[in-house]
């Protein structure tokens, strides 16, 4: 997997998953994003780094925020960017997915940003696309969402500076979350002290502890001494598939309330990849409160995506 993502010189070519990437590469992404953070605050929010490059956002699954931040990231780097929404029903077979890719390839694209409902789709496209094209995974099934994980790492670093002393809790639907898988890999690669995952057993995948986390079924026990609390969105359809009895009971058992937040460290930050369900996984008073960094995550998303885009394309030029 790591070989697929790296050039022969060990530079980033595709960004499909955090797995297999070194601490140096992840830190380089964070540092590069740091250098881009000022651009969004300038009067002219543009640098000519990717002028003349073409970036295509291929969204086989709907997403407003992720797509928008990728579009903004591309245009702030002066690339030409188009976004295509493709209903999954039209491309439910691999061959037509491949045909879509081939057609766009013929239009001399430099980067595909892909979101797809099936795990492994980004990997499949990276393996089957022309060698000069970089693929950035904007979320595939329940597998990975590496740019989201990196913007979370970026936000954590802004507040906590060092990773190695941190205790991080991830609370919510661990089973279905691609974000969580990527976050766990990133946190472990960056060397945090402890990762705790917190959920009822119906929302925990089997053998999850082998990902390098400790498992809690009780939120109160899990919050003690935490530096970072990451809440995970709960999809409404989990109620109808016998995973949970009701939103109310979920909030009662696993929702982040003001009383519970006091159990963590006083300077703990609260994160959420959004969109948030107020009163389901998190109380409004916390989402809008002083410990919340949720909106910062969104702004950081642009810088991280700029960093990943520029790194994959720059490295390609070095390789040539």
């Amino acid at each position, binding site marked *: 997997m790591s070989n697929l993502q790296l050039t022969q010189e060990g530079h980033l070519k595709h960004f499909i998953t955090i797995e297999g990437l070194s601490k140096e590469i992840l830190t380089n992404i964070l540092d590069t994003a740091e250098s881009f953070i000022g651009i969004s605050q300038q009067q002219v929010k543009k640098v000519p780094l990717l002028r003349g490059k073409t970036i295509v956002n291929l969204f086989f699954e709907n997403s407003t925020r992720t797509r928008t931040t990728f579009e903004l990231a591309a245009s702030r780097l002066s690339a030409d960017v188009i976004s295509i929404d493709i209903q999954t029903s039209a491309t439910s*077979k*691999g061959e037509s997915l491949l045909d879509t890719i081939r057609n766009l390839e013929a239009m001399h694209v430099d980067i595909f940003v892909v979101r797809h409902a099936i*795990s*492994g789709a980004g990997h499949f496209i990276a393996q089957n696309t022309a060698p000069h094209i970089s693929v950035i995974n904007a979320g595939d099934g329940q*597998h990975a969402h590496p740019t989201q994980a990196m913007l979370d790492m970026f936000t954590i670093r802004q507040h906590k500076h060092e990773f190695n002393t941190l205790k991080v809790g991830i609370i919510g639907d661990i089973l279905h979350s691609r974000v969580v*898988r990527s976050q766990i890999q990133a946190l472990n690669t960056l060397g945090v002290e402890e990762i705790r995952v917190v959920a009822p057993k119906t929302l925990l995948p*089997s053998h999850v502890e*082998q*990902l390098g986390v400790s498992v809690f079924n009780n939120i109160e026990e899990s919050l003690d001494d935490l530096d970072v609390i990451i809440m995970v969105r709960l999809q409404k359809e989990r109620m109808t598939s016998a995973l949970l009895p009701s939103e109310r009971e979920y909030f009662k058992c696993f929702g982040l309330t003001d009383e519970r937040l006091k159990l963590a460290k006083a300077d703990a930050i609260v994160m959420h990849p959004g969109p948030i369900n107020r009163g389901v996984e998190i109380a409004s008073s916390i989402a809008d409160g002083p410990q919340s960094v949720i909106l910062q995550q969104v702004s950081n998303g642009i810088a991280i995506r700029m960093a990943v885009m520029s790194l994959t394309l720059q490295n390609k030029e070095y390789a040539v």
Partner: protein
Amino acid sequence: MKKIHITNGRIIDPANHIDQTGSLYIADGKILSVLNPIADFSADISIDATNNIVCPGFIDLSVRLRDPGQTHKGTLQSETIAAASAGVTGLCLPPDTQPVIDTQAVTELINDKAEKANYSQVYPIAALTYQLAGKELSSMATLKQAGCVAVSNANAPLANLLVLRRAMEYASSHNLLVILHPEEHSLNNNGCTHEGFFSTRYGLPGIPEASESIAVAQYLELARLTGCRLHFSQISCKAAVIKIQQAKKYGINITADVAIHQLHLTENDIEPFNSSYHVIPPFRTTKDLQKLREGLANGTINAICSDHQPHDLDAKLGAFPETEPGIASVETLLPLMLCLVEDNTITLSQGIACLSQNPASILGINSGALTPGFNADVCIFNAALSWAVNQQNWKSAGLNTPYWGEVFKGRVTHTLQSGKIIYTLE
């Protein structure tokens, strides 16, 4: 019919307790004599089997030919040629052809085609339920008369246990073997890989081993209730082996087989998102693999099948969960069996029995042995001969194997079906 004399081979015939170098005499398509010389035998064809092993032709309990209905994946001709090249002289065709094997007409069509192709003998398995829909019984007695050797619902689910109970009762009234692939579909939850660390790591929906062991437990109880002769096909997990072992101890009339690749690969061997490894039942854990091997060695598992499932390229071209499950595996059956002998899991005689005598006995057919008077179904192979899994050597229309590019030891040199040479290594 020609007279054939196979000389100097190491003849291994587990059914008749033979393991000795000597001659095999064939006349009129039948075995005439093993080891005992026949006076004045003037052979039309003489095959020198020096350094080779001569054994009963293999009987494979599950080979998808994709014909009729899915000939873009393989044809009866292409897949029986592949089977013949693998030493398989008889193969069971599961009923999930298109149309399904639930009428006399489809059965006869397959028999006609197989006769015309004239490679391995094809034993059609009839659908247990009409259209494999799991609701109404198929016309089992008629299908048996038309030449079906057993009934099965392939990998299709049954509506409920009452349907299965009645199907088993009806099948046993007609003395028909019921072959069941143990799977509790409601627990599969659209899974495409074993539910374990691999599925968690790559975010792939998993199939728990309980899906199989729960089905095994249910089917065992119904076998006990109905007295039906039951065969479990392609078991994959430790819990299933244990349950089958216990049931056998209590005298329930059951047998079981395992697909050859389940004895070699686990979830740890899967290259991430490589669809060649997408197979149902999925590759499970090292513990499961060890128990399957143990079960094979102690006779809990009676037979090894290939579970051959050729696919066209498009079927495997996509993100892992979207691709079709199955491995084209008949041609790697013998070399992978020989690996089990090499690492002392089973003896060579056991391995051959699992591929010939035992499947024949499960099906209740006079085959799988070199008994004089039986059809001369013979496989001759060189256990030391290396070959590579590549375009040049591969016969199946399906290239979907995780072993593509690998080099194996053990190659068939000749295959004879009813005294006719259906394969010779060039």
